[in-house]
């Protein structure tokens, strides 16, 4: 017979074999398992016919107030004492006078029933007396309360005392557990049922005598969370990977930048609205940087802004102020990196890019943030044309999986011809994503560059949002783990 036992069942059953018949409480103590688990195991064992649950009935007997009062001498014994005093005879009236009517009536009734007295013509005569020891002994025991197996209690005494309201009786049922012969048999050759397969079970060979408990494999598993890369950073890294594949080199500018590199070198007049507080973060501390290291270019910047310098342009026609150029701001564009890079790399071929944070004083909303990533790229080649600019941008988007592009003439102070670019994204339609152009002759003159340069800049958030189907830009910065842990992995 192979009836598999779980570890708990085995433990309980073997204990039961030692104790034979026992109460659940005792089993709990001797197995060290909680009483609730014991009850469950016993149910399981009983259902397998390995243990038997026996219910036994008991009576609990306790003396009442009335019982306590007469435990030394019953009322009829008091009557006997009175009669003895009066030489064995007394009239009913006398007895009633001595005992009171109620008590006298009880005492007379029980004395007569016990055959101690005779009553004739209103006279009571004592005829014999034997102390009712058994009744009184029982009553005394009942003072503390006593429990007897049902049917084992002295029926007559209990009946009498109950009738006389000297005891109260309560019936009880108690459960016992007993191992069955089948249980003893199974214990001799146990088959354990185990829920966790441990290394110990395998190493000791115990697995031969156990059975692995089946799981509810259809239940929902508990939640687990992998560590995950941030999706937007992954997108930025994908863009970076594409650019290196296309032969680009990284260039650098600074988060805190002088207006000189952010605006002046890019031919943005010093009273240009973009330089004002509505469009640029100015710094309270530190507030002024240095352009001392760039004396040659500072001179050219001044000349080009004021009258065009050697660039063939009219310039902006105002007095250029180096103090404004020294002011520090948070860079509002990464084109400053292109300018810095070209200043040091004047010979073609050049392919360089930057992906970096830029800052503008926009209120936080679903569409805009005061900081965003801009990607700027430049290409310099000896015979580079406007068509090449369009071509390289198209190639970049092809790598990103975007095929449809639309170009619109645009205006930027530092490029001409200038382009605003739209890409077509399924489900969203045309979205404006980049600005581009050929660097103006004024800009090239200031930087000291003799070859044509194609340049572009684009915010990466909008494209990333289109990719991930997000319509609130703030979600790119969420720290809400319940979202980050559960958002779908983009693999398609």
């Amino acid at each position: 017979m192979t009836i598999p036992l779980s570890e708990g069942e085995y433990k309980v059953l073997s204990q039961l074999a030692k104790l034979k018949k026992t109460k659940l409480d005792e089993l709990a103590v001797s197995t060290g398992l909680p009483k609730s688990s014991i009850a469950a195991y016993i149910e399981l064992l009983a259902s397998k016919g390995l243990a038997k649950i026996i219910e036994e009935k008991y009576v609990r007997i306790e003396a009442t107030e009335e019982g306590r009062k007469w435990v030394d001498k019953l009322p009829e014994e008091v009557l006997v004492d009175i009669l003895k005093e009066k030489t064995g005879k007394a009239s009913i009236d006398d007895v009633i006078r001595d005992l009171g009517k109620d008590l006298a009536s009880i005492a007379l009734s029980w004395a007569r029933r016990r055959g101690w007295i005779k009553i004739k013509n209103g006279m009571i005569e004592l005829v014999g007396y034997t102390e009712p020891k058994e009744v009184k002994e029982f009553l005394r025991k009942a003072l503390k309360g006593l429990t007897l197996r049902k049917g084992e209690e002295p029926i007559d005494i209990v009946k009498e005392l109950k009738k006389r309201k000297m005891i109260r009786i309560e019936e009880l049922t108690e459960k016992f557990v007993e191992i069955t012969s089948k249980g003893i048999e199974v214990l001799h050759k146990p088959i354990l049922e185990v829920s966790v397969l441990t290394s110990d079970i395998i190493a000791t060979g115990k697995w031969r005598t156990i059975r692995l408990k089946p799981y509810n494999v259809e239940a929902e598993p508990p939640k687990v969370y992998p560590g995950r890369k941030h999706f937007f950073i992954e997108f930025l890294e994908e863009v970076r990977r594409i650019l290196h594949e296309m032969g680009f080199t990284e260039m650098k500018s600074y988060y805190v930048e002088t207006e000189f590199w952010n605006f002046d070198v890019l031919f943005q007049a010093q009273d240009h609205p973009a330089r004002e507080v509505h469009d640029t973060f100015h710094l309270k501390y530190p507030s002024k940087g240095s352009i001392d290291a760039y004396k040659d270019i500072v001179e050219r910047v001044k000349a080009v802004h004021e009258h065009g310098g050697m660039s063939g342009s009219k310039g902006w026609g105002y007095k250029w102020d180096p103090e404004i150029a020294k002011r520090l701001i948070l860079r509002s564009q990464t084109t400053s990196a292109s300018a810095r890079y070209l200043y040091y790399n004047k010979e073609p071929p050049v392919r360089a890019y930057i992906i970096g944070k830029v800052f503008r004083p926009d209120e936080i909303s679903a569409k805009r943030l005061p900081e965003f990533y801009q990607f700027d790229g430049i290409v310099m080649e000896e015979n580079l044309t406007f068509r090449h600019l369009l071509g390289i941008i198209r190639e970049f988007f092809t790598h990103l999986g975007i095929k449809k592009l639309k170009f619109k003439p645009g205006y930027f102070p530092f490029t001409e011809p200038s382009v605003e670019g739209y890409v077509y994204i399924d489900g969203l339609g045309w979205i404006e994503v980049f600005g581009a152009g050929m660097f103006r002759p004024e800009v090239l003159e200031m930087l000291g560059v003799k070859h044509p340069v194609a340049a572009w800049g684009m915010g990466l958030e909008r494209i990333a949002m289109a990719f991930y189907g997000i319509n609130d830009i703030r979600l790119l910065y969420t720290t809400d783990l319940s979202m980050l842990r559960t958002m779908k992995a983009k693999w398609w």
Partner: protein
Amino acid sequence: MPVIRIYKHRLDKLVGRTLNVEELAELLFNLKCEVNIVDENVLEVELNSDRPDMLMTEGIARALKGLLELELGIPEYKVANTDIVVYVDPPPTRPYIAVATIHNVNIDYEMLEELIQFQEKLHTTYGRMRRRIAIGLHDLDKLPSKTLYYREVDVDKVKFIPLHDYREYTAREVIENTKQGKEYGHISIRDNKYHPMLFSGDKVIAMPPVINADITRVEPGTKNLLVDVTGTDKRYVEETIDIITTMLAESGGQIGRVHIIYRGEKSSEVYPKLRTEVIKLNVEYARRVLGLDISAKDLKHHLEKMRFNAKIGDGYVEVTIPPYRVDILHPIDLVEDIAMSIGYNNIEPLLPSTMPPTPLPPKYRLINTLRELLIGLGFQELHLYMLTSSKSLVKIGVNEEDIVRIANPITEELDALRPTMLNQLLIALRDNQHVDMPVKIFSIGDVVVVDEEKETKTNEKTILTIAYMSGKASFEDLQAPLCTAIRLLGFEVKTIKAKHRLTIDGRTASLIINNVNRGFIGEVKPEILEELGIKYPVVIGEIDLTNLWTTPVKQ
């Protein structure tokens, strides 16, 4: 970029053809404009800020007629002399003025609406919020006298009724008590006492750049206009009067010249000058920029479509620029117009010569590998703002002198550039106490600290900030994964006993990577957790990764 509302039926009338909306949107797209259709008669047009000559239907129509080849080259404007004279005693704060008239413009309600819009848009863009230039429009026929005076006056000694008012104010009252005065009254006042004023005879007709007098108010039915432009820059004042007069003459009006005589009759000017400029556009230059094999004849045609006059010379095209095209600074600007005439989307993109792939810089190789390892160790990457609050930085013990602070923050919560990510990570932990534990997060990013030695007075670092939070979290829970990741990158790392303002003494260590102290890890002090409202123990660490990618690696 400026957005204007225009009436389509006015545009159709001015162009002389009824255009369907799609056709119109496409044409305007090629003129740098984006069109939003409000209803069948009202369009919103977003323009680029380099074309003040298109801020009104008249200007848009002028450009469209060229593109549609209905008219080519520079329009002919009727110009005549007037007997109006302006005597100028230049106010030091706003020395320049130009005045001109337009006759037979027949202003109706819609045109007036557009005219006011044009004036406003020009003020905010080209006029630099009225500082550089400002425009005043007057009903010529209401002018009290044909003798005008432009000079500075004591603001307490001159009175007039401002436009759309009925009470008489002193100029000071206008500055102090009217909306316009409060907004623009500070621009040209001198010593809080003197302000430029334009008189017709002895009556004030304008207080530039603040407001006009009501006496010369323009209304529907006005037939003839007088325009004044004042400003701080002679070139822009002269360009603006050219832009306005040619714009208003587009619907058939006649431009009138006005004589300006400076104090003591030392010098004089006549406006508008309607000065045209000639640029020689080298054919080869245009070809080289565009990458198109285009003939001089085609160049000429495209330039004429863009409303320039063009004459073919030997290897060049002689281009005459109309007075209102103030955006043309250089021959390159003509090349762009040629490209626009061709249509950007008709120009075939061309691939430049290909370049071999470049390796990813060591910085990104290291960061990406570190990200991989930390993710493998179960940490979630976060993406955090670079702007943060100086208050929260000071609260966690960052020195004020290290913090880059913004003069014009949009909110106090974002008034600094982060020098650390510890505060941001702690806030992220505070906000994630409801999720299943443990919370394991990190972020790698740039931080900026003040550094007087640098040209930008700042220094940038790339750092890793990382934290572990759980019902039970101890030093080792972070020490183990962090040291493992750093060792797997090939660096030596040890933790030595240290102190940090955020973490518990005796449970804080410096991280020594290849013998350089690069940061710390430790269990956050309970008092800090309590202050932040974090109910779980937290282990946090921050290490400086800057130039770790140039550190030799143990193979």
